[in-house]
């Protein structure tokens, strides 16, 4: 009887499965109400207002140059932004936008010394002249660390770095792009804005079976069991597929300086003729790594703990992958409360 029922259900399940895949693009992500505070070229600073603000220091979220920052506000009920607002923080988000060929002149110097620096300034002004907490994720974390090393006098109270590459030795990325055969200059010269789909393909190629097969097999099994979580799957799948282009200058510098020469860790990185010395970071620092992160492995982030001069350093190493750590099913119950608790202790008015 069960086998017969399974057989009858098969076409229905196939239709539901294909419907979930076909309508993924219609999923709504990043829906928390927000205002535009400031824009410059493709960068936009958004503000999310807490209806029960209890902490003087707002949180400024900074995401990577690849993928979109909506991962911070994925869907109602599973949004880090929502979680921070409920905890009484005002939240700001710096969105790098969709760079195109005209933005080929945007390099790490422009992102760190202009866009991020000005975004912090505008955030502080909008919040009434207060200090802010900078929270960076992935490349966003690296940009935040670079800025903190260059600008010790900026109005920044705390730093939170999530799955952030610092020392790239031994990583799979370094194995791929660190070799002589990988000519980052040729690629950057040929394409003023590297297509996001190419970067996404490389990311997925790190775990080809998991990304190109297992994800769909699991969804199919969930549909067969009648347990498919449509909105959870679609919001994440939509976010994963949304890849903005990488400006050529930033790409060239990121690959060469971070992966071929490991300059940030070695202390030889210079932006706008100023050395980026991580030892100049003195602010309270929370570093979160993910045990199963294959994009920014924990061993590539941990050296930061020894390099900074901060007296107040906390390191959380939690199970999960590069994105799953903060956006997975357990993040809301496990990782977010720990981050919020750390922030609450360091966000009082002075």
């Amino acid at each position: 009887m069960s086998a017969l029922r399974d057989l009858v259900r098969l076409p229905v399940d196939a239709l539901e499965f294909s419907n979930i895949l076909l309508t993924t693009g219609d999923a709504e992500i990043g829906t928390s109400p927000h205002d535009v505070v400031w824009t410059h070229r493709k960068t936009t600073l958004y503000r999310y207002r807490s209806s029960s603000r209890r902490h003087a220091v707002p949180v400024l979220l900074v995401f990577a140059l690849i993928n979109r920052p909506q991962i911070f506000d994925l869907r109602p009920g599973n949004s880090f932004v929502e979680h921070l607002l409920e905890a009484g923080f005002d939240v700001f988000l710096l969105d790098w936008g969709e760079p195109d060929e005209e933005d080929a002149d945007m390099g790490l110097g422009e992102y760190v010394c202009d866009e991020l620096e000005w975004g912090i300034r505008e955030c502080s002004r909008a919040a009434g002249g207060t200090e802010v907490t900078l929270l960076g994720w992935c490349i966003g974390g690296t940009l935040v660390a670079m800025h903190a090393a260059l600008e010790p006098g900026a109005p920044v109270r705390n730093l939170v770095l999530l799955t952030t590459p610092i020392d790239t030795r031994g990583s799979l990325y370094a194995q791929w792009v660190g070799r002589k055969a990988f000519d980052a200059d040729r690629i950057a010269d040929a394409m003023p804005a590297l297509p996001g789909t190419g970067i996404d393909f490389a990311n997925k190629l790190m775990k080809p079976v998991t990304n190109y097969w297992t994800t769909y097999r699991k969804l199919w099994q969930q549909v067969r069991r009648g347990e498919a979580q449509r909105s959870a799957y679609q919001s994440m799948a939509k976010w994963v597929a949304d890849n903005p282009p990488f400006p050529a200058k930033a790409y060239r510098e990121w690959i060469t300086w971070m992966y071929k020469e490991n300059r940030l860790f070695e202390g030889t990185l210079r932006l706008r003729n100023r050395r980026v010395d991580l030892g100049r970071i003195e602010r309270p620092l929370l570093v979160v790594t993910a045990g199963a992160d294959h994009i920014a492995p924990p061993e590539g982030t941990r050296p930061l703990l020894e390099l900074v001069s901060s007296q107040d350093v906390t390191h959380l190493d939690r199970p999960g992958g590069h994105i799953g750590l903060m956006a997975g099913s357990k993040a809301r119950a496990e990782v977010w409360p720990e981050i919020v608790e750390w922030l609450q202790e360091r966000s009082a008015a002075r």
Partner: protein
Amino acid sequence: MAEPSALESVEARLAKATEKLVASGPFSEVLAFTAGNLAVIVRKGGGVADSAVRGLRIAGRRDVVAFGRQLARTEDKLERVLQEVEALQDELRAQNRKQSRKKS
């Protein structure tokens, strides 16, 4: 915890094997050369298409990008002027506050 099915076991083994493969030197070498070649092919293809469009006296990609760059440069300058204005406003406000405190 349910036992993995035969398919899942095969899948897990295949996943491990492919991850080992993509982390190998030869694969990285192939990937590196492929990426470089692909970038050049895309540039050349784009260049040919753009020349054809421009030949028809229609603004091509190059013209649009040049225009975009000019706009971006103008916005850079405007941003710096705005920052100067805001700094002056802050200074003026601080001076006014000081003066009103002195008067009272």
